[in-house]
């Protein structure tokens, strides 16, 4: 038994290791790579693996982990602020797609029960495909990403009543517990989860972190996610949703980072496995029996879904390209459809054949997503570019220029200051809307992932005088800094840091000029608070300047030690201790310097 397990593992890993890097090199993206690997080793490819169902079920855990990790990033407060978009946009998307698909199915002469279940099942998108693609392309902060994220969350919530609805429509007697008691159970479950999160899980995490055994912590993290998922499954709720909630509950705990780093590799591998399983589950037998019908269904389904999403994107405040990208991202059918159709087949709402046809349609639509994105990148984007491309003469071959990577709220201020002083600029960004606006002003803008060295070369990094690194994400910022250091060692980098740790990480890469994004403005607000309290304006300024010097010095002093601190000491506690020490130091330094400067509080 375990022998076969190892053999299976060998097959998966080999397929993934061979196919995925090749797919990435060809620019097909990792998701499509996994899907292809799955098709290759599945029953219709080399036939190396047979138990597709089991694998699919097991690998759904990858999706669960993905949502748990995403939940960790989202504090309850933030989630609450998203509630309107989740329920508004989500309901609009699910409702719109369901109605249209239902209409189409009824026109095609399908029975209403069957049509309703199929339409509901197909209205859901794939959290795994869409979210991992958005993460890969760093789209989560964009409007399309936010809308997509909200909709995916709503779908996970909406799946619960859908699955509850299936037996009610079925010809067999519904399960012992009807929809209502199921709903009651689900609510009780959520309440239990919230309470446990507060009063049980955190103390346990603290206790286990206290033992200082890293692998036990990892084991506990996995145990936590698995047990929550199974409990959710018991009451007929979405496992992924349960994991997401657990993640949100732990988002403001001090072990957030430790949990994230521990689960990250599992998440990646299991998600890969999930996509492989989807690839394997494409039943080419069903497909080959009636290929045209299935392709037609898949195409019609995609067309309807794309149209609804594209129309919805407008009221969400997206423009041209973002709308297309958003529609592409959420166009596929989701993993929940498999569950819904499975339940429907069990309840005999429709027969097994119909279920398997629909499953193939969903799988095909999942394969279509990466293809659509390739279409977007290779055809649509360059086409739009060429439409707007000004004749490359006036600003061509920028030399002696400054490159600004990341032209968001932060980079814009830097850029405008430089522009006002006639410094030639080149912008790199991955937000297409932004780029159109900038082009209108005649700036040279390059679109895409700035961490790619070919893009840096195209943007003229070889002839640049400096690079301003003001991208949003810490990971991207570090990646880009490392890429620039490796490729253009002489190009000075001036970086925006999100926090002190990020600042240190940049310094590790040899970046010498770093500004913490909140520091100067917070200092200014502190100064104005002092004025409000009646301190003299000049006194407040001197105090702020004094504090500033001292703080900049402390940051440099602590730099050599920041890496030796034990990994599992919680970030939050460390931050607290640091703050404490800083307060002490601030006070001492302040009185010493004030004495030197002979400053007396000038307040009334």
């Amino acid at each position, binding site marked *: 038994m375990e022998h076969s397990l190892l053999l299976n593992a060998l097959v998966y890993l080999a397929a993934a290791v061979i196919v995925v890097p090749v797919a990435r090199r060809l620019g097909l993206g990792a998701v499509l790579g996994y899907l292809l690997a799955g098709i290759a080793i599945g029953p219709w490819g080399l036939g190396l693996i047979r138990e597709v169902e089991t694998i699919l079920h097991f690998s759904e855990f990858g999706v669960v982990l993905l949502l748990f990790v995403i939940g960790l990033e989202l504090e309850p407060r933030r989630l609450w602020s998203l509630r309107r978009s989740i329920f508004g946009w989500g309901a609009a998307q699910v409702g719109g797609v369901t109605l249209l698909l239902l209409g189409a199915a009824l026109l095609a002469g399908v029975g209403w029960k069957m049509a309703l279940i199929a339409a509901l099942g197909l209205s859901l998108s794939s959290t795994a495909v869409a979210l991992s693609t958005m993460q890969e392309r760093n789209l989560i902060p964009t409007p399309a990403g936010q809308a997509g994220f909200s909709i995916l969350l709503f779908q996970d919530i909406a799946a619960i009543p859908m699955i509850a609805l299936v037996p009610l429509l079925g010809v067999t007697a519904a399960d012992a517990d009807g929809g209502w008691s199921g709903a009651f159970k689900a609510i009780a479950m959520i309440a239990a989860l919230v309470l446990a999160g507060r009063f049980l899980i955190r103390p346990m995490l603290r206790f286990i972190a206290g033992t200082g055994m890293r692998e036990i912590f990892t084991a506990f993290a996995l145990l936590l996610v698995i047990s929550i998922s199974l409990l959710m499954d018991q009451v007929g709720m979405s496992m992924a949703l349960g994991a997401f909630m657990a993640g949100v509950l732990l988002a403001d705990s001090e072990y957030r980072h430790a949990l994230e780093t521990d689960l990250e590799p599992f998440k990646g591998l299991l998600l890969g496995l999930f996509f492989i399983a989807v690839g394997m589950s494409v039943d080419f037998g069903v497909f080959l029996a009636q290929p045209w019908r299935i392709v037609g269904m898949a195409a019609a389904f995609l067309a309807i879904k794309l149209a609804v999403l594209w129309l919805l994107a407008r009221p969400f405040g997206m423009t041209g390209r973002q709308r297309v990208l958003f529609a592409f991202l959420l166009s596929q059918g989701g993993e929940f459809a498999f569950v819904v159709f499975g339940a429907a087949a069990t309840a005999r709402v429709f027969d097994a054949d119909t279920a398997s046809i629909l499953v193939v349609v969903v799988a095909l639509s999942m394969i279509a997503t990466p293809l659509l994105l390739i279409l977007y990148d290779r055809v649509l984007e360059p086409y739009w570019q060429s439409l707007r491309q000004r004749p490359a003469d006036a600003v061509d071959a920028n030399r002696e220029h400054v490159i600004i990577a990341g032209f968001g709220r932060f980079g814009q201020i830097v850029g405008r200051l430089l522009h006002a002083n006639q410094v030639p600029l080149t912008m790199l960004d991955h937000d297409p809307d932004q780029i159109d606006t900038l082009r209108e002003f005649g700036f040279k803008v390059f679109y895409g992932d700035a961490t790619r060295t070919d893009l840096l070369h195209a943007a003229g990094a070889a002839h640049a005088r400096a690079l301003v690194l003001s991208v949003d994400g810490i990971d991207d910022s570090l990646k880009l800094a490392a890429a620039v250091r490796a490729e253009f060692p002489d190009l000075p980098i001036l970086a925006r840091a999100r926090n002190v740790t990020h600042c240190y990480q940049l310094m590790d890469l040899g970046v010498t000029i770093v500004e913490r994004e909140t520091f100067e403005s917070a200092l200014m607000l502190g100064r104005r608070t002092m004025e409000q309290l009646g301190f003299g304006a000049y006194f407040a300024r*001197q105090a702020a*300047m*004094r504090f*500033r*010097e001292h703080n900049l010095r402390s940051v440099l002093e602590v730099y050599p030690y920041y890496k030796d601190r034990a990994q599992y000491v919680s970030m939050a506690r460390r931050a607290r201790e640091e703050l404490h020490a800083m307060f002490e130091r601030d006070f001492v330094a302040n009185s010493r*310097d004030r004495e*030197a*400067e*002979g400053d007396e509080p000038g307040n009334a």
Partner: protein
Amino acid sequence: MSSDLRALVVFADPSLHRSRISRRVAEACASLPGVRVRDLYQLYPDFYIDVRAERALLEEAPLLVFVFQLGWYAMPALLKEWFDSVFKPEWAAPCDGNRPRRLQGKTAFAAVACAGSARDYRAGGAHGRPLEDYLAPLEQSVKACGMAWLAPHPFYGADSTDAEAAARHAGDLRALLARHAGIASKQPQGGAHGA
């Protein structure tokens, strides 16, 4: 900090690309061994002065040279700010007799560039008074701290002169500085740069 610091040049020039003359003077001074130049507008663009660092240098240097261009008959704003924050009376010239005057026994002079000609700086001229009158507050501040005040080294017509005159002036000042630093230095010869 090098203990063979022989002269501290306090240089203040806010102009965008430093005036030809000031830049030459500063560079000429910096090239001498044992001379440290404090380019105030480059060090403290925000007008917030690191008092402790400045005082440490002052205590070490036997000779102090102020290099600036006159503007509205006075020193540039940042140099005045430097005086106000570094030369606190209780540090530089305490009133009670028990505390030492930290700068006692040092020597100071000013190298001042002026836009007008030497003829303008006299009674009845365009600027009404001799240059020394306009430097009086500086002279008195130095004396109040117990330092010796040497005659200023003026450079008239700074905005209109050719490069040659500027170079000559810079060379003169460098020689003057070397001479005074040699005189004022009470330490054995040290060869290292004070930078």
